[in-house]
């Protein structure tokens, strides 16, 4: 007899499944995933974390208090039934667990790996009040990986076909999610992607050692399994315009998820020397074009002996760790605030330190020097101190007058942020944007033009994968409502 039935038979309303009492559960230590040793991993692009195996996942699931009011769920931007899927892990019913997750998040193998869980679901987890919170992301990843390796995948049932076509622009996490959701709702969906592969930042930005590309491909295949068509090599605004999608190709709604991929530069002298890369260029060459397998792949990348990375976010950590794997003697990272203000995930800062990246906080580049051939030779930095907090509460870096130092370097990677891709905004009349170039959307994801919806980095500026996923879901709901109304109008006319 199951624990649950026994509880019911005894007339107790308790629907707990896990046999341990809460105080006992609270005492179990958080399980640590299996990770490769730093010395080993800096020599290759293999995934750093192997995640949980069945035993670790089972032990971790034991720690869940099965809260009556699962606060963890509220902090997940797509409100995954966290308590529910952890319970299914405990019951060893992994097929049902992944099915439950997929109801809310169609990209679990990805989000389980790259979500900033520590500031979302895990930050809210009640166990975290006394002990370390549940490893929710790792558990999510575990069931998603289980599905890929041993499990069953049956695409969710497709509701009645609506006979209407929706176009999705951009195959990043937002676009993929919107497409999957709309397909499940019965729409005929085509994704148009500018690059030659689907995945967006998941493919060209986030490195193989954090998110293996075969995982991204597998999730993309699951989107295709819903009947979604992905047309690569189509730049909307160039190959086709949004207006042509409506007027000539009979699409009735469009979701724009084109991301914020345009790299920013610092506008300091020497920034255009050879050997100065944007993080986007470095990462795209390595991830999408596989320069790390040069000459098997044709795209080259030249990394010297002393790499200097500028920035303090996830992108900077990825650029530093990627450079490290290409074999230089030393990788330095320069950030203009202190460690507390670093926007990168704690886990990634930790990994970068383990891998021997040298951090230089409160420093800001002011000039890059070149040799006679136009190659980077050195970088000049100014020391900074922290001033008053800005409107987001982060203390502003202030230059200390006269305090400069110069570091020899032959490769500089600039990772100070990305701006929205501008092509759609420039070629779609009537689409309102902010002064930063992001597309303006209302609370349901609708833009200033009828039938056009947007989300993810193109409307938020640089954000996260799970926010793009959440926007994709919101917009697909809104598109469904919009098209349902349109159908009703047509049939009443």
């Amino acid at each position, binding site marked *: 007899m199951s624990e649950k039935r026994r509880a019911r038979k005894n007339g107790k309303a308790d629907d707990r499944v896990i046999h341990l009492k809460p105080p006992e559960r609270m005492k179990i230590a958080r399980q640590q995933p299996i990770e490769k040793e730093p010395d080993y991993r800096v020599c290759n692009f293999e995934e750093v974390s192997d995640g949980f195996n069945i035993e670790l996942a089972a032990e971790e699931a034991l720690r869940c208090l099965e809260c009556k009011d699962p606060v963890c769920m509220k902090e997940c931007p797509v409100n995954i039934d966290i308590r529910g899927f952890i319970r299914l892990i405990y019951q060893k019913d992994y097929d049902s667990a992944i099915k439950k997750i997929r109801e809310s998040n169609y990209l679990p193998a990805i989000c389980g790996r790259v979500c900033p869980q520590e500031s979302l679901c895990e930050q809210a987890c009640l166990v975290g009040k006394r002990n370390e919170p549940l490893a929710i992301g790792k558990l999510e990843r575990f069931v998603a990986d289980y599905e890929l390796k041993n499990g069953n995948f049956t695409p969710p049932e497709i509701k009645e076909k609506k006979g209407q076509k929706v176009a999705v622009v951009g195959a990043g996490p937002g676009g993929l999610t919107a497409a999957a959701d709309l397909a499940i709702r019965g729409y005929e969906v085509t994704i148009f992607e500018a690059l030659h592969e689907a995945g967006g930042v998941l493919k060209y930005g986030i490195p193989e050692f954090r998110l293996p590309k075969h995982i991204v491909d597998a999730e993309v295949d699951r989107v295709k399994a819903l009947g979604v068509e992905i047309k690569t090599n189509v730049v909307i605004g160039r190959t086709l315009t949004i207006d042509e999608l409506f007027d000539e190709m009979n699409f009735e709604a469009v979701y724009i998820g084109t991301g914020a991929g345009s790299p920013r530069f610092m506008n300091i002298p020497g920034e255009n020397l*050879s050997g100065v890369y944007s993080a986007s260029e470095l990462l*795209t060459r390595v991830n999408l074009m596989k320069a790390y397998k040069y000459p098997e792949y044709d795209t080259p990348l030249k990394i010297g002996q002393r790499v200097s990375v500028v920035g303090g976010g996830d992108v900077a950590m990825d650029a530093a760790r990627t450079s490290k794997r290409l074999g230089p003697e030393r990788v330095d990272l320069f950030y203009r605030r202190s460690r507390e203000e670093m926007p990168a995930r704690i886990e990634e800062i930790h990994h970068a330190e383990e891998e021997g990246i040298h951090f230089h906080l409160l420093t800001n580049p002011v000039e890059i020097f070149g040799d006679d*051939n136009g190659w980077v030779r050195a970088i000049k930095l100014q020391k900074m101190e922290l001033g008053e907090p800005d409107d987001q509460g982060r203390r502003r870096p202030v230059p200390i007058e006269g305090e400069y130092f110069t570091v020899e370097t032959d490769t500089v990677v600039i990772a100070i942020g990305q701006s929205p891709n501008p*092509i759609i905004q420039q070629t779609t009349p009537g689409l309102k944007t902010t002064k930063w170039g992001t597309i303006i959307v209302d609370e349901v994801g609708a833009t200033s033009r009828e039938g056009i919806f947007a989300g993810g980095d193109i409307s938020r500026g640089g954000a996260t994968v799970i926010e793009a996923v959440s926007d994709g879901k919101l917009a697909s709901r809104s598109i469904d409502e919009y098209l349902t109304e349109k159908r009703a109008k047509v049939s009443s006319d």
Partner: protein
Amino acid sequence: MYSVISVTKIAPGISRLEVEAPLIAKKRKPGNFVIVMPSEKGERIPLTIVESDEQRGTITLIVQAIGKTTHIINNMVAGDSFTDVVGPLGEPTPVDNVGTVVCVGGGVGTAVIYPMAKALKEAGNRVIGIIGSKNREMIILEDEMRQCTDELYITTDDGSYGLKGFVTDALRLVIEENESIQSVYTTGPLPMMKAVAELTRKSNVHTLASLNPIMMDGTGMCGACRVIVDDELKFTCVDGPEFDAHKVNFDELILRNKTYFDQERKAMDSYREFCKARGAYV
């Protein structure tokens, strides 16, 4: 897959390819380019769309073999295909009827200047063409250029055809003889474009140069193609490829384009070995 319909050798190491790409053929305007990838493990490189045929759904590319990727493309035969072709990219050439214009193409740059010259002619301009090469064999698109220009000057470095000298020598004469030149358009190797810009700056003739920096995505996402124009940072693939030649920082661009010199040479050497081992000549 994007099928190659035909390949014609038009000069030593230079081929003209017709490639099936219906959406691009329909949309393309003079000045646009595509990014192509010849194979799954290949590199993405930019090539100008020389012509297109909307009915047949094809675009024409003219490719000079200089490194590994362009050699692979040059060795293609009808029936081969590119894994990826994306475009049309870049801002089209501004084509207005302004009076008299000069179109200067050097080397394979003639393939880039030709669609511009044709469009400028169709818009009603008096078009003076100047094309130049190392020697007679390397002159391309002579007939096509004759058809869309009112006067055509040809220069060769060795004097084997046309005027002996550089395109700038011809341009100097043209500027001296014609007072009413409104604009000069130029494409070719960077040092040539720089020389053209220096020449026209003296006589204050507006000049547009179609730049050819290293590119990767072609959609404004990597910044590899960045250039300084009028002290401002521009991305050639989305803001260009044409810019006011008097405002471009050519020196910096020339140095940047050498970034991968060693690797490119190595790639080419090993590709040559590979071809030799199969009895092919490169």
